[in-house]
């Protein structure tokens, strides 16, 4: 199924590309149909898996214990194979990817006039790369998809972006590429040094537990860490993000914020920490400090922006700091929180970018100084914006709160001081979120302004995302249950977890 899904999206892209010769409106329908088919394929496959399998603990080194697993020879001489595996975590990420992919297509339904076919093709190819990243178990294959997802995204920004698109696209490309090459270096070192059979192997299962130790291990780990932290993005490697987001077309921003950033977090959780347990935990204080700094720094800068998209981009930096914190705290609560944050942030930020795109499409500006009082002109937009703004500032009852609470609660057992500083992020988030609301939808309205309110297409996308956030906020259990076995499989790999204060941290380290 997994290879088919990837091929389906790729082929869909090719068809969408060529179909623009027939009719410029055709590509978006084809793209939508492709994503829908992909989702259908995914759902029909998982409905075929017996329910109790989802509760079994995944042993990451044993392919048979994954929900789905397939392996074909590719370049046997170097131990490279087409190895795919899906567990609860990948499944969750796949659902998020396909759902947000559909949202991205909807969000730029009428926006693209130049080469719509190529646009949709790049969109689908980005999705192809992302899905590959979430499924690949062979590190070489993983790197391949890591690069595959980069190039169409670069094109999306460089061709369909806004006024300063060349700079932004190049910055995005260079940051990701340089860090990706460092990761390739680490992958090769790991494959040569770390294989258990003596032969070279790029297989995840073979490499687990065989990382080089000491200084070499630390350096190799840093290669992975850098690649993933740049993508996350963690402070201080985040500077490509505001530019890329600001200049990207709406669908690009939605994909970038909703899914691409999550590949960084996924990489840390799946590869960086389990492959290098020792080095990672030595490094954990640094990583957590970066996370905390990111939270505060992102929030401070978000408050200073006057560009709607830039503000939301910096808020992403702030939110992803929580993910970094949660991953390196490495106990059940914090890890579950980090995963929740990936999902909830994906939805809430995608919605905010869609809002930004809708505003730019209508007002031809992203400058908040030229907005104000828009609630008067477009109350439905205002209500939606209000919802997602309070979601992003972590209102309990919505998904983001569950995420932040779990991360901080888990982190508290590891480092109370770090928690106290990170919790300041709750205040700063309120500061910039409400400022955003004030500058755009509140304040003195321009009563002559013609602003078309959300139509049914946009409204239904918004309602779906709202429902998702409420569901995640009030009954996140299905998500937690889906990833729990994965975490139970991963957690024993790391034995030297940071010291904890607690007498009985729930689900914490033994």
């Amino acid at each position, binding site marked *: 199924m997994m290879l088919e899904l990837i091929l389906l999206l790729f082929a869909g892209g090719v068809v969408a590309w060529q179909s623009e010769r027939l009719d410029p409106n055709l590509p978006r329908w084809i793209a939508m149909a492709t994503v829908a088919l992909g989702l259908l394929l995914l759902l029909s496959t998982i409905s075929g898996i017996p329910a109790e399998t989802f509760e079994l603990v995944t042993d990451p080194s044993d392919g048979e214990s994954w929900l789905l697993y397939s392996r074909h020879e590719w370049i046997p001489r170097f131990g490279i194979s087409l190895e795919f595996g899906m567990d609860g975590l990948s499944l969750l990420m796949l659902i998020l990817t396909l759902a947000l992919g559909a949202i991205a297509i909807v969000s730029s339904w009428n926006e693209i006039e130049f080469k719509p076919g190529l646009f949709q093709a790049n969109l689908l190819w980005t999705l192809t790369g992302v899905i590959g990243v979430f499924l690949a178990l062979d590190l070489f294959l993983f790197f391949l998809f890591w690069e595959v997802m980069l190039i169409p995204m670069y094109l999306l920004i460089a061709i369909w972006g806004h006024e300063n698109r060349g700079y932004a696209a190049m910055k995005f490309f260079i940051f990701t590429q340089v860090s990706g090459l460092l990761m390739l270096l680490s992958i090769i070192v790991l494959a040569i040094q770390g294989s258990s059979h003596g032969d070279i192997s790029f297989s995840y299962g073979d490499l687990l537990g065989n990382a080089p130790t000491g200084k070499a291990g630390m350096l190799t780990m840093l290669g992975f860490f850098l690649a993933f932290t740049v993508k996350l993005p963690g402070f*201080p490697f985040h500077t490509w993000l505001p530019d890329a987001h600001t200049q990207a077309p709406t669908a690009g921003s939605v994909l970038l914020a909703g899914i691409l950033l999550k590949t960084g977090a996924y990489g840390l959780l799946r590869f960086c920490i389990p492959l290098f347990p020792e080095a990672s935990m030595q490094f954990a204080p640094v990583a957590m400090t970066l996370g905390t700094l990111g939270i505060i720094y992102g929030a401070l800068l978000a408050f200073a*922006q006057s560009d709607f998209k830039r503000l939301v981009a910096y808020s992403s930096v702030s939110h992803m700091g929580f993910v970094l914190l949660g991953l390196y705290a490495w106990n059940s609560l914090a890890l579950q929180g980090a995963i929740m944050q990936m999902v909830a942030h994906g939805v809430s930020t995608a919605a905010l970018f869609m809002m930004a795109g809708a505003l730019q499409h209508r007002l031809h500006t992203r400058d908040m100084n030229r907005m104000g009082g828009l609630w008067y002109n477009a109350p439905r937009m205002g209500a939606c914006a209000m919802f997602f703004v309070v979601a992003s500032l972590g209102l309990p009852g919505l998904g983001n709160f569950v995420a932040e609470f779990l991360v901080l609660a888990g982190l508290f057992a590891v480092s109370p001081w770090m928690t106290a500083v990170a919790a300041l992020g709750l205040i700063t988030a309120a500061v910039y979120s409400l400022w955003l609301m004030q500058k755009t939808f509140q304040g003195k309205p321009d009563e002559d302004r013609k602003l078309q309110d959300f139509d049914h297409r946009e409204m239904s996308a918004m309602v779906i995302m709202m429902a998702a956030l409420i569901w995640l906020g009030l009954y996140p259990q299905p998500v937690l249950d889906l990833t729990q076995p994965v975490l139970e499989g991963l957690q024993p790999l790391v034995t030297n977890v940071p010291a904890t204060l607690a007498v009985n941290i729930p689900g914490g380290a033994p």
Partner: protein
Amino acid sequence: MNTIALIPLFPLLSAAVLMMSTGRMPRQIAAIVGAGSVGLSAICVAILASDFLADGQVRELTLWTWMSVGDFAPRIAFYIDGLTIVMMSVITGVGFLIHLYSIEFMWDDESICRYFTYMNLFVAAMLLLVMADNLLLLYLGWEGVGVCSYLLVGFWYKDPANGAAARKAFIVTRVGDTAMALGLFLLLTELGTLDIQPMMVAANTQWQTGDALPVLATALLLGGAVGKSAQLPLHTWLPDAMAGPTPVSALIHAATMVTAGVYLIARTYGLFLLAPPTMEAVAWIGLATLLLAGFTALAQNDIKRILAYSTISQIGYMFLALGVGAFASGIFHLMTHAFFKALLFLAAGAVIHCLHHEHNIFRMGGLRTRLPIVFLSFFIGSAALAALPFTSGFYSKDAILLSAWALEDIGPWLWAGGLLGALLTSIYSFRLVFIVFFGEAKTEPDRQPGWKMAGPLLLLCVLSVVGGWFALPLANVFPVADDHTVNHAVEWISIGTPVVGLLLAYLMFLGGQLSVDKIVASSSARSLRDFWFSGWRIDQLYETLWVTPYKKTSYWLRNEPVDAIYNSIVSANQWAHHRLLVLQNGELRWYATTMVLGIILLLAVMLRNAP
């Protein structure tokens, strides 16, 4: 379905329906749905309360498990005991009256539908707050009411000043909420649960009285309570929050939400009893706040700001009660305060409504004969606020002062401070009455309140008078306070103080025997008045201490200093590029020459290494 679940469900559903109508619902229907849902909740609460009073059984209801990670499994569950019943009655009862009043007050507003959406959402969140069986669900309600308060303060969003007030309200309380969240993390990490009852049991077995951990945990919870209940040092948001519609001020910023901090401390009293230093801090905070706000209220001239400061001051009394361990008295004062402060705000709202949105008390006057129902309400409310004998405020405040007196060591000091506060309360509340309702008229009212306004006013009048005789079912909730015999002189002084205040107010503001103008003639007195008027300059202090540095820092950082590092790499590359460009000069001879030189160099190296 279970009545308990219905109570928060009605307003929640109504809010959802109103929201989905996106303002297209006719205002009659919106009003009926909005107020009716709270009325239905009130009926359910009444049924539940009568059942509860009959058997005194604590009721629990679990709807579903919210999330479950390891041993941490908070539920969406309700815990109904006497304290909850009192709070629910106040919220739905007073809430319903205020909703009814709102129909008339907000009738001409174009977004009445949005108004009722927020109000219903608020009632639902507030009910969740008091009904929650664990601190996480309580936190949900806690933040929920915060957001509703933000939405309602900034309800008239077209004026940026309202938006600023709303943001201030939310952010200042968020500071406290963050402290509270840290408290939750600490409690969860140490005690392994956030369910309130098991948590208090665990705390009692795990901790000794006076240990560092309970002190820290309760101090953090106190942070949340201080923020929400507008106590020092986080009280600055409440006076500004008066920018919202007046019924909002009555419901949220007088009767219910601002007392959530008091509820929180009372709800987790088991923890606070383990932490005597925190308890003492609660008492001192309460005392300091009630005095500071009392002095400030004396100097204000905006009718709603006076009431706002008086709310801060009255919640100070509740904190004082909690701090001296008189939890039941604190909750009692919470209830009576909800009655008379809601009454005062609604009456003030009626004044404002009938006087073309006039807020300045010095431009009112002589309304006694022109708005008789409002005058009656305001007078009764002020009497209760000032704790004149036989009003509800008298009983509750008296109980607090006596409990304070009974405390060892610091008790008499707290009592004396509270007494000074009572004197101030009496002066500023009757100053308000005398200036607004007596003397000559400066603005003529253009309408009279209709029955939807007058009805709630009269009902609240009755409650403000008889509320003092209610016996609250709190006996099984809090530990029984030992009956202390009290010095009768103390009791008489407590009763007499408000009367003295009333006389002073009369002499200053109505009789004219004591001239205020003469008092403030001296420059030191005037600067003192200005100092009080500005709320002890605390706003300015915070402005310079927090707001300006925050804005400046973010302004400095706005152009991304981190990018400078990457830009310097770019610049280094560009510099090298320009330097190396010299070599690429396009001259054939230069290329040939360098090639030859290179070959010579290579040959030289090779020959040197040759044997």
